[in-house]
């Protein structure tokens, strides 16, 4: 009954649609309220970036200052450093973090011993479940200048003086990248493992018959089959470029590594929330969002070129 009527009345306006399928609209209501109140209204609240916002006056009574906050932002000597750090750390993550899950999956795929595989997998996935609070403390502990195992090991084997890893700003970005890889690689390798498992074994048969060894098979069969999913994952990570930042950096950072560790999110938290410079840091967040949007559109365009599809149909 419903189907036939639907075919007859092709152009049904919203009102009629609502009255006919009111249940659907009812269902979507709580979610919509959520999105509007929690996700959209705060974005609209970014307008305080053009104000000199005071918590005592609120949005409607704070002074309007035009582009002053943005000017101050670009004139700030630390701005370029924060920008640079954010970009660098994001880039390191992609360059070094992207291949690792693939390599892991490839290695694991070569293993036929189920028990061994399961044991390795368990150890790989565990860090994903832990919070950065715990992971940061874990790394702080192993890198501690006097009690950390890394320094103990270095002392015993090479006999050098203990290194205060966490206080060295030049090491901070590599440490951030390493901890990121440590935490997430196992988890992301699942995707590749699944893809590997779905490769037609006949392709391998054919390759073996042609006399290909392991490495050649890798090159000829495995990698090409993985290419589409690799591209997707790469584009995803580009899209997420500016995202997962705060928890990790905040928990790993200390005053000594501010120069290389401070990123947009930690800066906004510190200067915005702790020091009360609300308008200025909102301008910073907006700038970050604009950069993020640019990156995503680039990623989307790339995706369209490479796979014929974008994220958004």
């Amino acid at each position, binding site marked *: 009954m419903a*189907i036939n009527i639907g075919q007859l009345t092709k152009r*049904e306006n919203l009102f009629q649609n609502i009255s006919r399928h009111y*249940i*659907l*609209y009812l*269902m*979507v209501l*709580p979610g*919509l309220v*959520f*999105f509007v*109140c*929690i*996700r959209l*209204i*705060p*974005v609209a*609240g*970014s307008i*305080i970036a053009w104000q000199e916002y005071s*918590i005592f006056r609120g949005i409607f009574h704070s002074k309007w200052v035009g582009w002053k906050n943005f000017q101050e932002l670009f004139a700030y000597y630390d701005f370029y450093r924060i920008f640079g750090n954010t970009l660098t750390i994001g880039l390191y993550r992609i360059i070094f973090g992207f291949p690792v899950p693939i390599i*892991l999956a490839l*290695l694991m795929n*070569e293993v*036929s011993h189920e028990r061994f595989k399961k*044991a390795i997998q368990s*150890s*790989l996935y565990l860090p*994903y*479940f*832990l*919070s950065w*609070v*715990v992971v940061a*403390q874990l790394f702080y*502990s192993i890198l*501690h200048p*006097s*009690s950390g195992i890394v*320094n*103990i090991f270095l002392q015993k084997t090479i006999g050098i003086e*203990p290194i205060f890893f966490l206080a060295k700003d030049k090491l901070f970005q590599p440490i951030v990248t390493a901890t990121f890889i440590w935490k997430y690689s196992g988890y992301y390798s699942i*995707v590749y493992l*699944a*893809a590997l498992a779905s490769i037609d*074994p006949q392709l391998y*048969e054919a390759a073996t018959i042609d006399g290909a*060894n*392991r490495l050649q098979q890798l090159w000829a069969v495995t990698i090409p089959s993985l290419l589409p*999913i690799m591209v997707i994952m790469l584009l995803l990570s580009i899209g997420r470029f500016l995202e997962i930042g*705060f928890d990790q950096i905040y*928990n790993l950072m200390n005053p000594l590594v501010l120069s290389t560790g401070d990123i947009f999110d930690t800066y*906004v938290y510190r200067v915005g929330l702790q020091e009360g410079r*609300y308008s200025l840091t909102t301008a910073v967040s*907006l700038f*970050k969002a604009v950069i*993020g*949007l640019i990156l*995503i559109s680039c990623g989307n365009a790339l995706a369209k070129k490479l796979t014929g599809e974008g*994220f958004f149909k």
Partner: protein
Amino acid sequence: MRRARAERRIKGGGTAISGLLIYLMLILIALAMVLPFIHELAKSFSYPSEVDAGRVSLWPRKPTLGNYYYYYRKHFVPLSRSFGITIYITGFGTLWSIYMTTLMAYPLSRSRKEFKFGPVAMGIAIFSIIMFPPIIPYFLAIRSYGLMDTLWSIIITHTIVPFHLILLVAFFRQLPEDLFDSCRIDGGSDWRILFQIVLPLSKAVLATVAIFTAIILWNIFLHPLLFINNPKKFPLQIFLRSIFQGGADPEVLLQRDPFDNTESIKSALVILTTIPIVLVYPLLQKHFIKGMMLGALKE
């Protein structure tokens, strides 16, 4: 099983050495994952002065349970309280989120004919994935809703995780339409379709989304940092952070307490908070593997 092994051997075609190398590399990698925990274990069972002197690497020195007992002595109430709060947030919050997300996903998965608002709602959801609100206006908005210093501030802000919404929508879309149609013919409303047909078929995907959500809520950090001031409402991660940072100053007792603010008690806390996860996650492994695959393939 045998057939799989045979298949793999055909696939292999490599030398025994390369096989061994692969095993070795994997073992090394697994070690890299596990070593930090072994170190923490060792420290947690060692006496503080041994730890500070750098004598503890993989095995405890001057073994003691004091580091763990320390939490019972001095931080029992705040620790168990924050634990309880996190369990509550994770349990209730996940249920809440699943319910709301499912409720919204169903209409969004319907065709444009049925649900005209669909594309707009999807647009909002996708916009939310790309654009997380700037922290300061987000903070100001949530506080203006009167959610400051409440556990609702965490739960409500995670009512729907946009990514999970998309997952569910994609899944619901590919459910067979004829099941829905036959239910409608029987006079069933959308409620009935949702609860009687869609949900039972979606158990796997819902379990996965539940796990993803639970992980987010268990480890939640930024939200309580922003919104919760009252130490009595600190969820687990905030409490952990306060101990790791060494800032929490327990009440001054007149006797010397050799365990206060030492590295060894911090290690004990790491182990304490990792244990529940180690116990629970093997059970979840199956589901979230499925979920990851679903997620990636859907993209």
